[in-house]
């Protein structure tokens, strides 16, 4: 059976959460530290089942979400590809360690299956209220990659992408799903690892005595050897010099922080992923992400049937915000509609990049139900 599996991609009927598990394993994830929370627990349960059966796989249930992310950071330093999954309240608890991971440049993937909030909110209902928190949740200024997924197949592919970005840019990557995406079952194709692009963190190529863990490099991303490999170094959440030692010297502080921004900022073209649908001649545009993008997709189809030139940008990367693509849409359309299951979070970004050529409308829903195609269609017809 297992030999058979290796020869071909297989089709499964799976939850979005299960697709995340498949994606993580394909990407080479070998460590999961987590704490159960609705509606993300299926990811944890899947990893609990699968990881101990893989070569070297470690699964551990920690005492809370803080500990979960802490364990992931430790394992990441030890050279593992790591993942944890959580939802709103747990995500809030993790914020300090997200900042720590940014500061020590530890690659990791954090999946947040968004539910209604704030606080305990609507535990079993979808929402998209953690978008700005994913970008700005931790204290201090930092850069971070936040991705999103639309359907179940996308959950698999975006998880692989998240791992690739984490490793390539030595950074935490947050994958934001919503309850609908995580709990939808669909037929998906699980590809073979050999058919995917799988990236690994850069390893040092100099003798250990010359290695500096936070050295400036061409890409801005320093190589990262696993602990115990002969490259002994120090990591700290304090602002540090290129040796990793704490520093307060203004020039060293500025160099460290600006490199951490630059390593992501200069690769916008690689990181910013969008999926455009009928935007070429669109007069009314829609910008959506997650499960709402699926509603928007149907609404755009229905609008086209009625002769309205509607188009959709489905954001797969939320941050760094895909400015170029959205600005293009804003320049072409008289109205751009931003439906989201919050009181307006990505719409802030859309408005921020609006060159003044378009009117930005929002559709906001926070009652624990997905925005329907009908709601979006109504808005498109008015636009």
């Amino acid at each position, binding site marked *: 059976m297992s030999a058979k599996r290796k020869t071909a991609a297989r*089709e*499964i*009927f799976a939850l979005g959460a299960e697709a995340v598990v498949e994606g993580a394993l394909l990407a080479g994830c070998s460590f999961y530290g987590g704490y159960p929370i609705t*509606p993300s627990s299926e990811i944890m349960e899947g990893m609990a089942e699968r990881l101990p059966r893989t070569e070297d796989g470690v699964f551990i249930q920690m005492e809370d979400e803080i500990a979960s992310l802490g364990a992931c950071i430790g394992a990441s330093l030890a050279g593992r590809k790591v993942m944890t999954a959580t939802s709103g309240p747990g995500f809030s608890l993790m914020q300090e360690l997200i900042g720590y991971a940014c500061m020590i440049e530890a690659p990791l993937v954090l999946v947040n299956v968004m539910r209604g909030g704030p606080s305990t909110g*609507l*535990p*079993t*209902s979808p929402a998209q209220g953690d978008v700005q928190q994913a970008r700005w949740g931790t204290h201090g200024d930092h850069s971070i990659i936040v991705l999103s997924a639309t*359907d*179940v197949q996308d959950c698999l592919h975006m998880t692989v992408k998240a791992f690739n970005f984490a490793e390539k840019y030595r950074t935490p990557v947050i994958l934001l799903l919503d309850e*609908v995406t995580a*709990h*939808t*079952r*669909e*037929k998906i194709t699980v590809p073979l690892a050999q058919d995917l692009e799988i990236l690994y963190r850069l390893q040092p190529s100099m003798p250990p005595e010359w290695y500096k863990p936070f050295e400036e490099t061409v890409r801005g991303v320093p190589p990262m050897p696993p602990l115990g490999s002969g490259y002994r170094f120090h990591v700290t959440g304090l602002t540090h010099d290129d040796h990793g030692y704490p520093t307060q010297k203004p020039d060293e502080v500025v160099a460290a922080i600006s490199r951490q921004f630059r390593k992501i900022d200069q690769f916008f073209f690689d990181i910013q992923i969008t999926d455009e649908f009928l935007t070429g001649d669109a007069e009314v545009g829609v910008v959506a992400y997650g*499960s709402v993008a*699926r*509603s928007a*997709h*149907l609404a755009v*189809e229905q609008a086209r049937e009625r002769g309205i030139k509607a188009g959709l940008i489905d954001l797969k990367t939320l941050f760094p915000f895909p400015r170029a693509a959205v600005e293009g849409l804003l320049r072409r359309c008289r109205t751009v509609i931003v439906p989201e299951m919050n009181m307006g979070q990505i719409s802030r970004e859309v408005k921020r990049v609006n060159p003044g050529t378009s009117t930005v409308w929002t559709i906001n829903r926070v009652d*624990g139900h*997905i925005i*329907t*195609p*009908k709601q979006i269609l109504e808005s498109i017809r008015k636009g």
Partner: protein
Amino acid sequence: MKPDIQIDRFEICLSGLGGQGVITLGKVMGKALALGHGFNVAQTQSYGPEARGGASRTDLVISTRPISYPKTDKIDLLVALSQEACNKYYPLMKPQAVLLVNTTLVKQIPTNQYLGLPFTEMSIDRLGLPQAMNTIVLGAVTFLLPFARRSLIRKSLEESLPAKIVDVNVKALNMGYREASKAFGQPPAIWAAMTVADNGNGDTEKAAPKKPTAKKAPKAP
């Protein structure tokens, strides 16, 4: 396998009480239609307070095209296993959609255009196993859906259940299918356009209906 007919967004809503096995029913059906029949299927469910004692619901969207919106937008087939579910989801149906009710529990049916079987009664009286009610429903729905094949549904059922309860559930599936064919005669005419073209290798039990049948529900047996 590749499906041999085209469907564009066929929407099923399976609803009932928490504990009736509605979500398992949706999973088994979704898996069969997706992996066995080769359709694109999106199955979603409602969780939360309404799953405890209140209405429980799972949606299936079936299509040969990629599915955008994963929830039901306009329901083609509503299966209501409880009165509350029937009341709650009836308004979401398309004008010409089909309503299948569990006549044991749904006594006030909002329309006389419906199909009904006493599923709860059947599972208790004839199988002695109330838990198999959802599989009887699966049999009936398999009969009703022109694009569903009994053999593939059975396979999915067998794969999804623990070995020791497979036999009784296959029996329940067959009973549901048989009773539905006895009671309803033909799959609803409204779906005739989607009816499967027999490819000659098995599954010949369901031929394309030659003419539309009355949609008036027969009396429950």
